[in-house]
């Protein structure tokens, strides 16, 4: 490099007005346009699929419901083979919601605790393997959980059920007449185990994202480790944990084979969580589908539509909760 050229730097070309505008708008080069088109196309494609599913469900459901003798929402019966057919989703809706609530009540605190332990308490050497094992749990097919549930978990529940009945039987929801412990509570516990990995996993990722500065600032103010977790980690991770819980809830609401294997279903709503009986949408579909005739399948599709609506409502509610807590989202960290 010689000195002469250094003395007179080449004049940088001034961008024209139009170029400046375009730069501000972004997305002008062909690559950007193609990417925009692909992304938009995928979005529209997804909407189209969802609409198609909704239309199909509604159409088939309408056929079935129009021939239903019972009230679709309140009948405690599912008999599509009789003339006239009688079926209702009351028991299924109740069972689906109750088993999912039990699963969430058990799984969320444990999952958050595990995630906190892995990210903030455990020595790295221990945290890694624990995270790994939790990840593996997510890879086990649900039918394996079902078989494990019926062969290992159900016989073990006798003790717990007896204890609950002895001490909390007076509440009514924990009263138990001797019987096989294949109840909503057993299902809830099994579902809790099944949704634990996904909640733990996502929560762990979120807790890992907490800005070091927040934690250090809290420590500098003299906070103990628990206070750091309470003041910096949990508030930051709250929306993430809610999202994680919703993923878990989605799995719990739709779980099919494990529930079908473990539950002892009937079409009654039981006051006690320990009484065998009840049912869930997905379990009922799995149980009735193979032998159902065309009308029976339409009726099952109608019940599936209700599950679809419940899932939409739950996800919508979760979005609203997360939107209200925007200030803690990763965007402004």
């Amino acid at each position: 490099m010689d000195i002469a050229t250094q003395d007179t730097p080449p004049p940088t070309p001034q961008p024209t007005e139009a170029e400046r505008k375009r730069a501000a708008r972004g997305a002008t080069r062909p690559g950007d346009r193609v990417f925009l088109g692909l992304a938009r196309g995928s979005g529209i494609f997804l909407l189209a699929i969802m609409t198609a599913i909704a239309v199909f469900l509604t159409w088939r459901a309408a056929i079935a419901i129009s021939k239903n003798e019972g009230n679709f929402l309140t009948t405690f019966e599912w008999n599509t083979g009789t003339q006239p057919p009688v079926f209702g989703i009351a028991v299924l809706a109740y069972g689906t919601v109750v088993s999912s609530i039990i699963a969430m009540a058990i799984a969320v605190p444990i999952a958050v605790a595990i995630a906190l332990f892995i990210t903030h308490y455990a020595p790295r050497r221990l945290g890694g393997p624990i995270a790994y094992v939790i990840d593996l749990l997510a890879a086990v097919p649900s039918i394996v959980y079902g078989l494990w549930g019926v062969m290992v978990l159900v016989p073990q529940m006798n003790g717990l059920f007896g204890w609950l009945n002895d001490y909390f039987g007076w509440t009514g929801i924990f009263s138990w007449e001797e019987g096989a412990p294949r109840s909503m509570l057993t299902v809830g516990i099994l579902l809790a185990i099944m949704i634990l990995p996904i909640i733990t996993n996502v929560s762990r990722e979120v807790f890992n994202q907490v800005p070091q500065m927040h934690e250090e600032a809290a420590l500098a103010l003299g906070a103990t480790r628990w206070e750091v977790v309470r003041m910096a980690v949990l508030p930051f991770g709250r929306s993430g944990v809610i999202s994680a819980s919703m993923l878990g809830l989605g799995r719990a609401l739709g779980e099919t084979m494990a529930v079908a294997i473990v539950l002892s279903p009937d079409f009654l709503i039981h006051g006690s969580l320990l009484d065998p009986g009840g049912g869930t949408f997905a379990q009922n579909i799995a149980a009735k589908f193979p032998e159902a005739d065309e009308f029976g399948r339409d009726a099952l599709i109608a019940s599936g539509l209700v599950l679809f609506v419940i899932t939409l409502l739950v996800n919508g509610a979760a979005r609203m909760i997360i939107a209200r807590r925007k200030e803690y989202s990763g965007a402004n960290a």
Partner: protein
Amino acid sequence: MKLQRKNRRALALGAIAFSGALALTACGSDDTGNSNGGDSTATANAGSIKCDDAKGQLLADGSSAQKNAIDAWVKQFSAACQVQINYKGGGSGAGITAFNQGTVAFAGSDSALKPEEITESKKVCSGGQGIDLPMVGGAVALAYNVEGVDNLVLDAPTIANIFSGKIKTWDDAAIKKLNPDAKLPSTKIQAFHRSDESGTTDNFTKYLSTAAKSDWTYGDGKAWAAPGGQAASGSSGLAQAVKQTSGAISYMEESYAKDMSTVAIDTGASEPVKPTSDSATAAIADAKVVGTGKDLALEINYNTKADGAYPITLVTYEIVCDKGNKAETLPTVKAFLTYIASEEGQGMLADISYAPIPDDIIAKVRTTIAGLS
């Protein structure tokens, strides 16, 4: 940081490998039904199977109750005739639906075609209709788990009252009366039924509503209609539940009740009847043909008092077109059905806990098969 990322990738790979292995084993365990084929006879019998023009592939679907029998037959037949027969045990409903859509050459079903299903089948069978050919029988055993009680005898009204919840404990007077010598405990009765819809339930409830009319008011059907009781999925699920629960009783196909105590039924015959292949065949012999034309749908006499005839008996059918079968599958269907209705085909059934169809009925089945077009 970098090290950690690497670790994570290794973990992901490990997880994929592990889940892959699980998925593979899950697939592998699917067709355990094949193991009942009876290997020793596989080659010995092959010579007597007439293949005629059988060739290529055959699709079939239907009743899972007869899947083990079909699998055993297919093993023999395809070894002799170089034909692939794929019977999916997707359930009777699925089988009939597939048959009426024309996607399978024949269907298996636990119950005979309904009139509207026959009407629909005329679309697929040009110039003919779907017909039922009884091919496999079986006893529906009542298995129980009551400590110290080995030879339980029950009659239809008592069974109806047990399954409808009116009889609550094992030392109930009605049970005592039928079992004067047994030491019946005061354990609560846990009656289990199928949680899925099933031809077994259909047959069992038909038995109850026929043989115990005044005690069973819930009608019959594939779905269990009586309130209360407990439920489990599939015959295997019921077997599991009965083994696990003290005081339990349930109904299931006989092959699932092999290592459990089963109820002998007091039918009014000279002595109570146990569920076996022979006693089921004896009950089918007491059945009458109710199908019209070439249709050989049977009506089991649930009130049978014949000696050694077990009343809760299930007949499963193969459903084909009497006329208008597809030209490309007809020779194969005919050859296969001819084989399974033959003495040799029926003879295999007892070894795998099914009941052969009695002679005079199977003779009619053979004539009908010969006339398929």
